[in-house]
């Protein structure tokens, strides 16, 4: 039997992508654009659709406007119908314990009423933060056949990254015996992907006992460790492409993976769906390549106009690359204009920027990490925020951050040195 009718999806889409810095400062992490026309949440929503799941509660909190505009009624993911749908679940008041969501478990707890109304047998809890293709139906089948109370999807990560994740130890039968949330010197490198299948009755009991009693608010820190030894928890191993694109470097790498046939990330065979992107004047027309255009190893969104050179890059819809301009190893988002002779190297340019003629983004040596956010930016990538204006001839170095809306033509400066941040 298809799991659709007795299984409810709760999708945590409130994420603050703080390490994505200005890319996620005015939009929730799931709404961050990806792959030349998608947003990060499209991957999870497409997985939901391909798994035959039909009802999704979408939990929003941080700057949900872009996300709500994007998801709308769920139609692009075939989630419209008598039984199918997406319900937006924002934080709400009205009960003594309603409040801003204090953690993942709290967000689910505050929407217990929504779930109880639907009397699900199982609840699949997902996050909208990851790039992967997964069939949840198979995971649900394993959960049922093994009679688990909770099944957690897991995949091995490099040992040096284990402290970014919840990690688990499982016995030979796959039952989870230990769980550690974001600790140094982890006992395992088997990381939780944040994909949970819960028996609903168990979920409700645990949430009431822990969150309801104000003992904790998070699945990884509080709920799962508390279930150890009491409830059968199954580790569901996943082998495939999965990335938490939570840092600027990993975000850039995952975008570049779209170009590499051996990376395991294949937008076409994964059948990722997204909402139609409507340009400023209506429909996006086909992309136009001029007589001197050169485009290789790149993704080109709709309605781009390319007269210059684009190599190893991801261009979102409506980007204009003028004659003599060169864009390399970069991500350029909707409707940005790259002026004549402008050079963009190893950079991320957000939507609607104006890069002047002969300007350079990503000049320099890249040995100096960003001074204000060394933890976010030390690999050489420069990030230019939404709507930035860079006047003709200005040179922006590596590891630089130019904040959203900054108009550099209002300042008399010819260069932005490596590692500089200009926020306003």
């Amino acid at each position, binding site marked *: 039997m298809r799991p659709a009718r007795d299984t409810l999806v709760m999708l945590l889409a409130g994420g603050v992508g703080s390490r994505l810095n200005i890319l996620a400062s005015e939009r929730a992490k799931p709404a961050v654009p990806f792959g030349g026309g998608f947003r990060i949440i499209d991957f999870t929503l497409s997985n939901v659709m391909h798994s035959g799941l039909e009802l999704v509660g979408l939990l929003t909190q941080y700057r949900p406007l872009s996300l709500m505009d994007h998801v709308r009624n769920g139609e692009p993911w075939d989630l419209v119908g008598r039984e199918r749908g997406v319900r937006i679940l924002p934080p709400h008041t009205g009960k003594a314990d309603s409040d801003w969501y204090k953690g993942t478990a709290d967000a689910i707890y505050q929407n217990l009423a929504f779930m109880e109304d639907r009397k699900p047998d199982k609840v699949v809890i997902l996050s909208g933060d990851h790039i992967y293709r997964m069939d949840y139906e198979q995971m649900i089948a394993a959960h049922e056949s093994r009679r688990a109370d909770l099944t957690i999807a897991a995949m091995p990560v490099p040992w040096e990254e284990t402290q970014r994740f919840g990690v688990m130890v499982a016995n030979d039968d796959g039952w989870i015996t230990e769980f550690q949330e974001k600790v140094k010197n982890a006992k395992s490198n088997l990381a939780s992907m944040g994909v949970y299948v819960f028996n609903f009755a168990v979920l409700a009991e645990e949430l009431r006992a822990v969150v309801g009693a104000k003992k904790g608010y998070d699945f990884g820190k509080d709920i799962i460790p508390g279930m150890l030894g009491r409830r059968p928890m199954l580790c569901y191993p996943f082998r495939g492409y999965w990335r938490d694109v939570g840092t600027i470097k990993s975000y850039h790498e995952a975008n570049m993976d779209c170009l590499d046939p051996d990376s395991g990330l294949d937008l076409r065979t994964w059948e990722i769906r997204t909402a139609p992107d409507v340009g400023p004047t209506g429909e996006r027309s086909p*992309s136009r390549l001029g007589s001197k255009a050169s485009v290789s190893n790149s993704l080109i969104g709709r309605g781009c106009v390319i007269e210059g050179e684009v190599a190893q890059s991801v261009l979102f819809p409506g980007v204009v690359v003028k004659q003599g301009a060169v864009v390399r190893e970069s991500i350029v988002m909707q409707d940005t204009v790259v002026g004549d002779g402008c050079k963009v190297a190893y950079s991320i340019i957000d939507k609607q920027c104006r890069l002047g003629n002969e300007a350079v983004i990503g000049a320099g040596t890249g040995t100096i990490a960003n001074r204000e956010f060394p933890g976010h930016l030390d690999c050489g990538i420069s990030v230019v925020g939404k709507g930035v204006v860079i006047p003709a001839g200005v040179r922006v170095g590596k590891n630089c951050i130019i904040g959203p809306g900054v108009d550099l033509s209002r300042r008399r400066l010819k260069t932005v040195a490596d590692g500089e941040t200009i926020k306003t």
Partner: protein
Amino acid sequence: MTKIVGMVLAGGRVDELLVLTAKRPKSALPMWGMYRIIDFVLSNLMRAGIEVVGVLSQYRPHSLNTHLLNGEPWDYVGRSRALRVLSPFKGAEDSDWYKGTADALYQNLNFIERYSPETVVVASADHVYAMDYRPMLQQHATSGADLTIAFKRVPRDQAHLYGTAVLDESRRVTVYQEKASRPEGDLASLTVYVFKTRCLVERLKQNARDGQTFQIYSEIIPRMLEEKARVFGWVFDGYWQYARTLDTYYATNMDILEEDAPNLPAWGVRTNLNPGTMGDPAPALFRPTAKVSSSLVCWDAVVEGTVEHSILSPGVVIERGAVVRDSVIMHRCRIAKGAVVDRAILDKDVRVGTEARVGCGDVVPNRLHPQTLSTGVTVIGKDSCVPAGLRMGRSCIVYPDMREANFPHAEIPSGSVVSA
């Protein structure tokens, strides 16, 4: 109350387009990679704020119906807005297939009268243009016209292909001739008519009683002029094209690659992006070996080979070492390794095998259909497979659904027709 109803003439099959219209009316033909020809008139009507549109469709309407859906892509969903496909139907008496444009309107008078409009705009779905109808509607209202016809000035030597008119200083039509061998005027009708509803209805009913011919151009307009009705002209001077033959269909497609091409974003043309018909909108993927210049490329295309001065529709795959030049490649075609496609139109889902050549040798007219295909363009019908290694000449026509067995030789000379 709805003031204006739009009636779109979309039923026509044009014999000259042969294999391209074997399974679809001309109005459903793809254009410029992602559009269908009917998108242009619907977008014009939408921008003019005309809220109710009837689409008169008769010939193989399936692809048109799928494309139009409920009119949502053109914003025709709402309390007062509607887009309806009006197919022929059976009624109590005298129902029949549409015998012509006037007959199609006559059989759908109840659709028009339901909205009690003051004005009816009748426009063909077969033309590629972006026109703001509002100034024409304004002139129609202030001049008190019974009928206003849009015209465009054409070269004298082409005027015989069109309905042509002469206007006086007040823009009143004094002469109208349909495809006259030596027309008096050089103003060609764009098949955009603005009627005072009452005049149109009376005229259609009178014709029905008289059992007259069934075309607007041959019957309605001449009789209105005879009876001294107030018929005016409106002169449009923008881009306007009419794909009358395979050669002109090709030329119109290629116009979009010119330096002074129509500015599509400015035109604001809408189309149906329904994933069921258009594929999921993944961006186009250019592999490291891709070389593409002077071309239009749609989403979901994958290019590993060389593309020059061509149009790639959504989902097209150009494999490594393949070369596509001066061609129109429609949805989901696959050009295999080392194949060369030169000056060709490939309808949807065509496959060209490895090392095959489409379009080589001398330019000769097509042997069976020189009137529609004489400029060297080779046309391959929907779903056909060109076998690996085959050499095909210029001005060839390949019917839809052809397989290896349908190609008599490994060498198809210029001007040939390949059919079952």
